């Protein structure tokens, strides 16, 4: 735990100094939400239709801006062979991986909250969006996304076409997470209650744990 916290502190300090990843994420989230809002405004949709497509838009935009920027935090580790240095310490590869996952989770979660707020503003959604349940859905979906993204970003960090390869291999694997997040958040927004005891609720609760365990176990093979 001490090693995990030390590594997390290192990543957060580096991010605080450079601000590269978080700025890229926020800028991309903002720009994409503006572009989508411009596109939708010409369709002259009525408020109830806009409300129905709000959650699918939130999650599709999330996949775009997060996939394009999550790799940056991994590339730091390959600069000056930092990752090799970390692996030469007694820190277990799983701990190094978990520290990276927690770091990416915190950044992605915060920026996703901002992204939802931007989209709500540009689309003129009058209904109250942010409640405990909605934030919980964002946290769980981000928790399912981050381990996969971190592992695959590590694999593609030294590849040719790395910027294109990561979305190509990551997005199909995120389909179950995407479905669960969209179904739960749409149901919450329309009816006021998310069906947590249904299939999608159970899936969204299980996926973060499942992906974290599997990806942590597989990480050592990707850096060997």
């Amino acid at each position, binding site marked *: 735990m001490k090693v995990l916290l030390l590594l997390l502190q290192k990543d957060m300090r580096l991010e605080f100094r450079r601000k590269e990843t978080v700025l890229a994420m926020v800028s991309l989230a903002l720009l994409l939400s503006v572009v989508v809002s411009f596109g939708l405004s010409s369709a002259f949709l009525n408020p109830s239709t806009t409300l129905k497509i709000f959650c699918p838009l939130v999650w599709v935009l999330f996949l775009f801006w997060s996939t394009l920027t999550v790799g940056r935090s991994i590339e730091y580790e390959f600069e000056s062979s930092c990752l090799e240095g970390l692996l030469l310490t007694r820190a277990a590869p799983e701990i190094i991986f978990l520290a990276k996952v927690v770091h990416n989770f915190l950044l992605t979660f915060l920026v996703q909250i901002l992204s939802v707020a931007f989209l709500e503003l540009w689309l003129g959604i009058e209904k109250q969006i942010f409640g405990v349940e909605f934030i919980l859905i964002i946290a769980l979906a981000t928790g399912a996304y981050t381990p996969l993204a971190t592992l695959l970003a590590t694999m593609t960090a030294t590849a040719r076409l790395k910027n294109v390869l990561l979305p190509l*291999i990551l997005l199909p694997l995120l389909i179950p997470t995407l479905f669960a997040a969209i179904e739960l958040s749409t149901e919450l927004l329309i009816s006021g209650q998310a069906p947590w005891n249904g299939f999608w609720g159970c899936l969204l609760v299980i996926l973060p744990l499942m992906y974290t365990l599997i990806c942590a176990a597989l990480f050592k093979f990707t850096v060997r």
Partner: protein
Amino acid sequence: MKKIIPSIIWLLGLLALYWTFVVVPNERVMGPVQRIFYFHVGAALACYAACAVMLVAALLSLGNKWMRADATLKASVEVAFLFCSIVMVTGMIWGKAAWNTAFRFEPRLVSFLVLWLMLLGSNLLRTFGDQAKVKQHVAVLAVISALTVPLVVVSIKFLPQAAQLHPQVVQQQGLRDERFSQAMLLGILTMLSLQAWLIWLRSRMAFMEEQGDGTSA
């Protein structure tokens, strides 16, 4: 042995073609286009079988338990991609005839599309990935993809019932004439044999390339 097995597969294939186009009568509602079903189902099962081989080869490759594991993984990913493409194309041809549209957001089609994308990603990673670690990377991706596929299939079943358009021929006992069942079984047997032979052939080639230049194929 090297010539006997391909000969048997050729004979099976010819028999399947004969049964499909000569013996089996036209289906009452869809007519001759329904015959694509006998290749479509076999290709789908062959694709799933290749994915199972992919998972086992990936685990063996990660554990360094078998020197041919990576070659078998490479072969099974390519063969699974081939059969998945056949399923997609034959499904679209059948869909155009049955629903007047090549693709609908329908559970089976979407699950195969996602599987096709995962297999495409694996092939791209093999080609453009970091060649020093590509064996491990592709094996890791294969394990995650193989675990995600059943998740996708189950998830899609929970979509609204109106979206479930794929014919449930066997479950709804549509093969009442035994000639239909025979043609389907021949198609499945042919595709599974072809899949196994292609994986064996391709893995041999990949292993020889690997040994030949000392790098992964």
